[in-house]
């Protein structure tokens, strides 16, 4: 960028700043090294079969992650099924349809959704979504749709995959919606105006110009949303029911990787192989998040210059 001959004072300044940068690199490698180091005993003992062994039995020292992986991906996929249309609608509304003077205010509301802590979402789920599912949705599905696979209601308790998915969907919406909005905003205005001047409706502009132009950014947003949903912990612990079974229906209870870590990791450290298996679960989460973020970042780099918007942070 700026090429100048550095003098001694600048050398010192650069040296001090590079210590800080070294700190950042150190943090990254600390987390990767710790997870790899402590999961090594389990990785070497169970091998790749860890991923599809269903039994998780600490007293017998048999550990397999299949149940938790299934639960995690069920919650994530169902959450994304809810979140994708919702956030596409929000992004399109904010960028194309919303009156100008309300746009800033409405955007702030969606960003506030991103800032609400995970535990607050969990409490809201326990006190609002779960009773709602128990009272209205589950009896309705039980009496009308029980012949459809994946929609059978066995225990009418409200907790389960669906409750967790709904809440996780609302936590993912701000990410996908804000990236959709940013990608739509990157569409050249002159093209849109040209189409409008030729008599196209807003819908034609969205369908034929905006979405084809910005679909990459939307993919990127969905990928990052997937990464966020996979690692979601506290809200899921409170809502999923915490039973180590592979759910046969979206109303069934289950367990996710993050939930089993949050619930049992502090007990697990007593036995080295148990603790190591739990760290291996964390390793799965870490690898998924790294891969997903590398892909998502590459996709977004081409569309909106890799500039993450505000809704990326917050929560937890």
């Amino acid at each position, binding site marked *: 960028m*700026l090429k*100048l001959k*550095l003098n001694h004072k*600048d050398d010192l*300044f650069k040296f*001090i*700043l590079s210590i*800080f*940068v070294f*700190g*950042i690199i150190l*943090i*990254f490698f*600390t*987390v990767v090294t*710790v*997870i790899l180091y*402590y999961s090594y005993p389990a990785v070497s003992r169970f091998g790749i079969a860890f991923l599809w062994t269903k039994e998780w039995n600490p007293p017998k020292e048999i550990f397999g992650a299949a149940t938790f992986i299934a639960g995690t991906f069920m919650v994530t996929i169902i959450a994304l099924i809810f979140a994708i249309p*919702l956030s596409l609608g929000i992004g*399109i*509304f904010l960028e*194309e*349809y*919303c009156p100008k003077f309300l746009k800033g205010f409405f955007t702030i*509301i*969606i*960003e*506030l*959704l991103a800032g*609400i*802590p*995970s*535990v*607050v979402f*969990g*409490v*809201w789920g326990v006190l*609002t979504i779960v009773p709602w599912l128990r009272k209205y949705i589950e009896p309705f599905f039980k009496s009308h749709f029980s012949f459809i696979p994946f929609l059978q209601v066995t225990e009418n308790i409200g907790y389960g995959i669906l409750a967790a998915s709904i809440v996780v969907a609302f936590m993912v919406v701000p990410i996908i919606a804000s990236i959709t909005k940013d990608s739509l905003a990157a569409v050249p205005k002159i093209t849109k105006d040209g189409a409008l001047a030729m008599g196209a*409706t*807003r*819908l*034609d502009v969205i369908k034929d110009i905006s979405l084809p132009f910005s679909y990459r950014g939307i993919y990127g947003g969905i990928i990052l949303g997937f*990464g966020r949903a996979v*690692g*979601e912990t*506290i809200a899921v612990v*409170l809502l999923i029911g915490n039973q180590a079974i592979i759910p046969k229906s979206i109303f069934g209870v289950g367990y996710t990787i993050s939930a089993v*870590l*949050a619930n049992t*990791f*502090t007990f697990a450290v007593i036995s080295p192989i148990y603790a190591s298996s739990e760290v291996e679960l964390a390793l799965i*989460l*870490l690898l998924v*998040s*790294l891969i997903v*973020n590398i892909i998502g970042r590459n996709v977004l780099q081409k569309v909106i210059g890799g500039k*993450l918007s505000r809704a990326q*942070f*917050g929560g*937890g």
Partner: protein
Amino acid sequence: MAETDNHKKTGDPNNYFPVNKSYIKRKKIYNRIAYGFAASAFILGAFPVFHIIYSALIIGYKYLNWRFVSTLPTGFPIGAKGGILNAIVGDLYLVVIASCLAVPLGIGSGLYLSLFGKQRTNSVIRLLNELMIGIPSVVWGIMGFYIFSTNAGLGFHFGFSALAGGLTLGFIMTPIVTLLTEQAVHRIPASYIEGALAMGATKWQATKSVIVKAAMGGIFTAVLLGVLNIIGQTAPLLFTNYYNTGLPTGITGPGGAVGDIAMLIFIYIHEPSHILHYKAETAVVVLLFFVFALDIGMRLISWLTVKIFEMF
């Protein structure tokens, strides 16, 4: 060719194109329907924000008073009487410790990335930094346990304490501060920095006298957003600090654990007691107050910075 011959058929020289009125009407109706879908998606997306605040307030207003934020939890089960002072003090401890780590590290790295370094090395550092933002908080918690809290093996052996929890939260906060500091420096008009350098200033002098002043608002926003992000974290604290119903006596070892509002909510909502559920909802009001206050403060600062820039 039928379309271009239209004016011959109708005899109207201005009507070059066939106007299919029902087609246009249908297009307009489809557009209306799309508008309706988009607007209802927005309403559905905005609904949780208001419903979360509403459902917390409707229970919280009965218990929320000065005593709730100024007394320690007492009674049986613990927390049935008294307030959440332990959690507020604990959050203060955690935020201060995390900031001590994350603010210098984040601002320093952000400045380095925008002022020094080769293109290629910087893009690697940026990649690592952004990947860290995506790592789930429960993974950070496990790392924090093995680095800071554990009593056996390698690590610092701080025990379940404010220092262990705060430093783990600092790890989460650092990449956010770094990313936003770099963006804040990039937003300064290039002429400011180039002007200072052209006058013979070193990069240190330019930083001291121009960049820090011009990017002050952005850097402050970065720190506040980092604090906003860690104030609601629960999962990392499960393994590094857990919870304390009293005030801490130190920051490491036994008695070093602190309370935390998010952790308190998480613990209270697990208890089979209505009064604790109500207290949890009241604590949600307090937590949301802090979160929204930080959020609004941040927006005010960045808005004011933009205004001040426009003045000159």
